[in-house]
């Protein structure tokens, strides 16, 4: 949680892996919760393609009915911990949203639409209390205890009010050419959040080609309250407000964009909550059971009746003692989600985001190109916690060439990483990082041609170049990493898979200098030494 809050997504992912979290690990009643967290971390780190397998697994479970169907009685007697965590309805809606974001980030707009549609399930509405306020979980439990089980079936069904889901579905529909579906969904989004109108209008007019989904703040914490702690409630971490998000593209004002989802509000609304804690609270007739048992036992004339009475007392005590609300929750959720629709017209653009009210946070995303071959592109950005803004978040330089970025580079300020102080140091973007340069691209014919044009790796074939990475046991593709993301070599890991430009993952890896690479193999050490000699001859700079 803490590592995620300060943008250390590589470390956060490593901790999740160390705890056994993976798309394949379905053991344990909290496995879905862990996998949703992993999905969020990977998306924040710009590793959308690597998140595909996990996103699909999460979707499978979300689409499953009746997971806890045979556990309702057990949860009353033994407490909520035996239940398979599937999340409150609002957590599920946001999980569908992250799946939609993952699909959109890899250009799979048809599936992005389907996932966004999954977030728009019907809601239960029990209405308001006498003071005109939405009924709380506690009030529902009290009414159910008075009126009986039928009360919990006496709700009205209403359409979802999840504006973010309607917006994403509408954008995805536009992307696949379903104008009718897009118009319907985007109109519903605007009806719920009128301040989305400008962004929607820009989309319809073709004046926006880049969608930003920006998470800000910390979601509320789930706590146990009420009788025997059976009711769950949410304690606010980041307070809600209506402050807009400001976006500039290459220094040009791109607009101020609204909040599309307020997680505090969702968590506080019974329509976005499940009723299991209400059922448990109602079922805590521990006081009633104990009272009833005591009466039976005290007044019984025969042994059998006395045993019945004692049984009732024990059942009541057991229920009361163990039926505490399940407080498992997704603490990686944001307090709010902003959406923006901007136009990126030039390659290698800089997008700056300022979000939040009194405790605002900002981030500069470099290397953003216009979408290639698609009408839209989507970028998901997780803003760091206010006050926890690392240098890379405001960096205006890119230091490393990669598969995601082929633009101008900043020098590391020395002769590559060889400690040769030079006031005129040129960036070494035409030399692999593992050999002392600033290129973390995967080995390709184009990359090798670039290196050789700069005077390095003379006589090398692509096979020779690839073997250098193999000697260092560096993975080049997501498939080699078992379909998952892995720690990048710039942060001491062994992966060369680059995050998408325009994400926090790209910023934290490529918009800040890192320590020089330390070869593991004799071969790479030797070749690096040879390239250093080439550099010393003045070639390449």
């Amino acid at each position: 949680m803490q590592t995620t809050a300060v943008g250390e997504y590589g470390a956060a992912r490593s901790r999740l892996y160390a705890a056994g979290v993976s798309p394949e690990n379905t053991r344990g009643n909290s496995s879905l919760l862990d996998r949703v967290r992993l999905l969020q971390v990977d998306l924040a780190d710009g590793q959308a393609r690597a998140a595909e397998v996990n996103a699909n697994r999460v979707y499978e479970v979300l689409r499953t009915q009746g997971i806890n169907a045979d556990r309702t009685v057990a949860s009353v007697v033994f407490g909520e911990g035996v239940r398979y965590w599937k999340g409150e309805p609002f957590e599920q809606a946001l999980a569908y949203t992250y799946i939609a974001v993952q699909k959109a980030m890899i250009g799979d707009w048809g599936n992005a639409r389907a996932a966004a549609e999954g977030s728009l399930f019907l809601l239960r509405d029990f209405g308001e209390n006498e003071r005109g306020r939405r009924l709380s979980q506690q009030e529902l439990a009290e009414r159910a205890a008075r009126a009986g089980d039928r009360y919990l079936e006496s709700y009205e069904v209403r359409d979802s009010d999840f504006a973010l889901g309607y917006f994403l579905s509408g954008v995805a529909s536009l992307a696949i050419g379903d104008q009718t579906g897009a118009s319907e969904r985007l109109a519903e989004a605007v009806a719920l959040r009128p301040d989305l109108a400008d962004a929607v209008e820009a989309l319809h007019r073709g004046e926006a080609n880049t969608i930003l989904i920006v998470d800000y703040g910390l979601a509320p914490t789930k706590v146990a309250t009420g009788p025997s702690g059976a009711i769950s409630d949410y304690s606010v971490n980041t307070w809600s407000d209506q402050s807009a998000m400001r976006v500039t593209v290459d220094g040009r004002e791109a607009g101020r964009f609204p909040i599309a989802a307020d997680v505090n509000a969702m968590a506080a609304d019974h329509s976005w909550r499940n009723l299991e804690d209400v059922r448990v609270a109602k079922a805590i007739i521990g006081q009633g059971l104990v009272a009833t048992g005591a009466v039976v036992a005290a007044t019984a004339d025969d042994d059998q009746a006395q045993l019945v009475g004692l049984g009732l007392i024990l059942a009541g005590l057991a229920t009361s003692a163990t039926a505490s609300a399940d407080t498992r929750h997704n603490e990686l959720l944001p307090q709010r989600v902003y959406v923006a629709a901007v136009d990126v017209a030039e390659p290698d653009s800089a997008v700056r985001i300022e979000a939040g009210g009194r405790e605002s946070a900002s981030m500069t995303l470099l290397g953003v190109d216009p979408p290639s071959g698609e009408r839209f592109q989507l970028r998901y950005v997780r803003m760091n916690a206010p006050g926890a803004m690392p240098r890379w978040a405001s960096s205006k330089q890119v230091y490393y060439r990669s598969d995601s970025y082929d633009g101008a580079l900043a020098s590391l300020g020395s002769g590559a990483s060889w400690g040769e102080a030079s006031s005129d140091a040129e960036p070494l973007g035409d030399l692999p990082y593992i050999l002392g340069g600033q290129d973390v691209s995967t080995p390709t014919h184009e990359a090798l041609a670039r290196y050789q044009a700069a005077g390095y790796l003379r006589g090398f074939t692509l096979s020779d170049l690839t073997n250098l990475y193999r000697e260092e046991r560096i993975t080049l593709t997501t498939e080699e990493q078992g379909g998952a993301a892995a720690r990048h070599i710039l942060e001491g890991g062994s992966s060369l898979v680059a995050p998408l430009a325009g994400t926090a993952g790209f910023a934290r890896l490529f918009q800040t200098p890192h320590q020089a690479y330390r070869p593991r193999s004799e071969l790479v050490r030797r070749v690096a030494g040879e390239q250093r000699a080439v550099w010393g001859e003045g070639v390449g700079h």
Partner: protein
Amino acid sequence: MAVRVGLVDLAVVVGIAGLGVGLPACASAPGGASSTRLTVDDIVEITTQMAAKLRASEFLGARGADSAPMTIAIQRVTNLSSDVIPVSEQWYLMDKVRNSLPIVELGRDRNLAFVIPAERLEELRSLGFDAGAAANRAPTHVMDAVFRSATRSGQAHRTDFYLCEYRITDLETGALAWADSFEIKRAAFGRSWD
């Protein structure tokens, strides 16, 4: 119309190793849970019906084993349903059609070959797979499919109606040679969010 009450097959079929799995099941959910997502059985039923319809169609009705070869490249499914069908599964759904016994028999009886398209071939080769379906290429037709769905859900149930449309187009003329649709209804019970 086939009706399935969704006890989903827990045996997940791996379509092509490394590219994703076959149709998902409740492999990751405790027993007793169900889903309305399409399953392998649904596709098997579709291919059985499809083969019968193709066999009797005007498009293939007059062909025999000695007819001039016809090569049909199969594209992946276009997903317009409300269900996420990952790209790897979109290919798998069509591979399942291509490799099904009724379609294989139809191919033998009417001198048809169903092949994977060139871009899919390249993708498989780049991943190191031996795509034997490269032999005897030069497609004369292309088959594609569009999946749509409608959903009804209530407190403790969900029903999805899938409409799976398949088309075969003559590559030389661009004319639609054959088209048909198949309906699948899947129902699942139990709460979604408890």
